[in-house]
């Protein structure tokens, strides 16, 4: 059967199980958009290619399946570089297809030519420039394989226009052959035993769970391990929901804006069981001072993560779920043979911190609206399995702190890159992937202005997400640093509460919109928003600009020097 390159590409995407692509056409990708008309694949027309990339990420976050985006060459390709980098940092499987000028004119500075493969090399797990239409099925298979196996990540396929037009003899390869790519699949039994033995001697162990738990779909295995051993669990920003916040063993989020107990438990531990976490600087604080007395068991699918920041005592390379399942077995047999130390003294220390240093803020009845109060109301009035997508800034930290994540894949955020503008498109992508779920974007006013136009996409495509703008009229996180570390010299952080008018803007984009200033209006408005299911909704919450995120470990400081912020009874 003869197909054009473009037909082969679309057919290959279908065979890889693609149900939806996010994109926007243009000159170089025109041939690919033609067979799309006859395809079973749903195409969502975005308003900016950055939106396509973040939607694909949101989709991947929420479903675990690779997100797919198609854009044209040149400026469209450069517009999608930010989402590629974002996905690279957070190990999100993406397949991005970019149009390219005809192969015959590559290198001549043709109209809308840009070296997409060169530009995206450092932000993709791998990328391909197709030079022969006959290679298309093979490259698409390889691309999905690389994106979704091992440590997941974004890949990019650049397809020149003439290659998409030329014809090829259709075939579908039964397997991929990448001699240089063989993710680990054997797990060292010896190291598993070593790990179990170490766990069986620790008096102050902590499980330091990272995003790898979610990537490996290991949440259940993690729960079994924690319950069997009674070891407390912290979940990093990338792992929120990987272990239920309402579980007794859960200490919540560690790190720069983690809660006091999670930070301090890591710091005081004598053993860290790092599962799919990477000792990121936002978690460790000053590395040399991080968890000084702890031995380390480090499990990661990516061998390069092991020893990158902190040399582990037991290094285990492997898929988190399989490793944890093996660990569970090893622990079970070790527990039968030996008596493990009593963790009661450790837990009583932990409970003291929890009692003295809970997350804390005060909402006065007729005082200005506190952002934390808004988030708690959103949490309490929305279904338990609501998906929350956040932007980057103070609102992100409050959302992560104050939401109760009890299910995996309910927290969608930009952790590694910290990309403002992530929230709205990511929420759209998540809702496309999980139309059965309520999806709330919790966004900042600054972030919202970066990608809000995708609400037009949401309205046009009937993707009824909900957006809560925590409108503090400031680039709040930057303001907080200027207040604390630059002697309150505020430089270029003021935005304005009403320029733009968020309600009018949202309405112009086809959304239902509300504004809330007073604490007593928060709950009723959220209820109204939750009742709307046929259109996107935006609520402009006017929040107190003075509120700061606490606890806080100042950049470069040791976690032992965490600033707890206000406490209910003034504990220090």
């Amino acid at each position, binding site marked *: 059967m003869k197909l054009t390159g473009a037909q082969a590409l679309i057919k290959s995407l279908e065979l890889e199980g693609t149900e939806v692509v996010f994109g926007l056409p243009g000159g170089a990708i025109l041939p690919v958009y033609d067979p799309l008309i006859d395809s079973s694949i749903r195409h969502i027309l975005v308003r900016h290619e950055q939106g396509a990339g973040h939607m694909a990420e949101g989709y991947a976050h929420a479903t675990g399946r690779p997100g797919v985006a198609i854009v044209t060459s040149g400026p469209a390709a450069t517009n999608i570089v930010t989402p590629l980098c974002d996905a690279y940092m957070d190990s999100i499987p993406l397949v991005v297809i970019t149009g390219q000028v005809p192969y015959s004119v590559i290198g001549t500075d043709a109209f809308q030519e840009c070296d997409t*493969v*060169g530009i995206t*090399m*450092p932000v993709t*797990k*791998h990328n391909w*420039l197709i*030079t022969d239409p006959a290679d298309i099925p093979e490259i698409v298979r390889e691309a999905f394989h*690389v994106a979704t196996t*091992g440590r997941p990540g974004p890949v990019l396929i650049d397809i020149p226009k003439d290659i998409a037009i030329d014809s090829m003899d259709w075939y579908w390869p039964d397997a991929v052959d*990448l*001699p*240089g*790519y*063989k*993710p*680990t699949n054997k797990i060292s039994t010896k190291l598993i035993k070593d790990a179990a033995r170490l766990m069986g001697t620790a008096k102050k162990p902590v499980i330091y769970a990272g995003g790898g738990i979610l990537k490996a779909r290991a949440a259940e295995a993690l729960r079994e391990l924690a319950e069997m051993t009674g070891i407390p669990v912290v979940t990093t920003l990338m792992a929120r929901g990987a272990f239920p916040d309402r579980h007794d063993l859960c200490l919540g989020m560690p790190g720069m804006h983690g809660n006091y107990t999670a930070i301090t438990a890591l710091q005081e531990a004598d053993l860290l069981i790092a599962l799919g976490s990477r000792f990121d600087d936002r978690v460790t604080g000053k590395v040399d001072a991080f968890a000084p007395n702890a031995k380390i068991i480090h499990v990661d699918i*990516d*061998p*390069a993560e092991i*020893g*990158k920041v902190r040399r582990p005592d037991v290094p285990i*390379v492997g898929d988190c779920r399989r490793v944890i399942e093996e660990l569970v077995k090893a622990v079970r047999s070790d527990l039968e043979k030996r008596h493990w130390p009593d963790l009661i003294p450790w837990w009583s220390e932990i409970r003291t911190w929890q009692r003295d240093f809970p997350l804390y803020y005060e909402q006065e009845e007729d005082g200005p609206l506190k952002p934390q109060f808004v988030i708690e109301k959103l949490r309490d009035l929305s279904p338990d399995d609501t998906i929350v997508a956040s932007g980057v800034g103070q609102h992100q930290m409050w959302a992560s702190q104050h939401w109760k994540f009890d299910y995996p894949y309910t927290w969608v955020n930009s952790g590694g890159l910290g990309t403002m503008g992530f929230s709205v498109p990511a929420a759209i992508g998540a809702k496309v992937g999980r139309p059965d779920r309520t999806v709330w974007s919790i966004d900042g006013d600054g972030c919202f202005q970066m990608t809000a136009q995708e609400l037009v996409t949401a309205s046009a495509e009937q993707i009824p997400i909900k957006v809560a703008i925590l409108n503090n009229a400031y680039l709040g996180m930057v303001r907080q640093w200027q207040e604390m570390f630059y002697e309150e010299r505020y430089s270029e952080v003021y935005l304005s509460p009403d320029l733009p008018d968020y309600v009018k803007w949202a309405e112009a984009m086809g959304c239902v919109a509300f504004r809330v200033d007073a604490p007593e209006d928060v709950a009723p408005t959220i209820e109204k928003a939750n009742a709307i299911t046929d259109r996107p909704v935006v609520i402009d919450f006017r929040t107190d600009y003075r509120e700061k995120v606490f606890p806080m470990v100042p950049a470069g400081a040791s976690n032992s020097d965490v600033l707890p912020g206000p406490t209910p009874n003034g504990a220090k």
Partner: protein
Amino acid sequence: MEQHHHILSVLVENKAGVLSRVAGLFTRRGYNIFSLAVSPTEDDRYSRMTVVVDGDSSPIEQVTKQLNKLIPVIEIRELAAADAVERELLIATVKAGPEERSHLIDLVSIFDGQVIDVGVASVTVMVAGTPDGLDAVADLLAPYGISELQRTGRVALPRLIRGSRPLKAVKSSEQ
């Protein structure tokens, strides 16, 4: 070879852009390449890169692990100086009138070198040797006046095993 230099012998797929992937990785992660040589191998599906890395600026274990993550990288061998045979080629154009020519020819022949081009007032010589040996050659040529000098960067292969000393090899199967 200097103490902090490590030789990585990297077998890669012979495909467009591989050099740029390897070089880009070094830039992005702040590793320093001391020298780099790329050559075809006996099998035309692969090329071999011999990368000499400065171990002080670049933790060698991380360099190897990160390189291994590149899809076209098939195998990496880390060659300790003692476990490798290495050679490099030097060519240099040296000022030499008719009367100095014979001195120069004697000099390079001590290092098994050759004169490969002769001009009115200069000659171009070629010497292959160990990096240290070539340093010495360059020093000895200097008094004549070097107008141009190029070195290829070293290529290396593991020393053949005579006893039972194992070689340190990092296979891509450990990825």
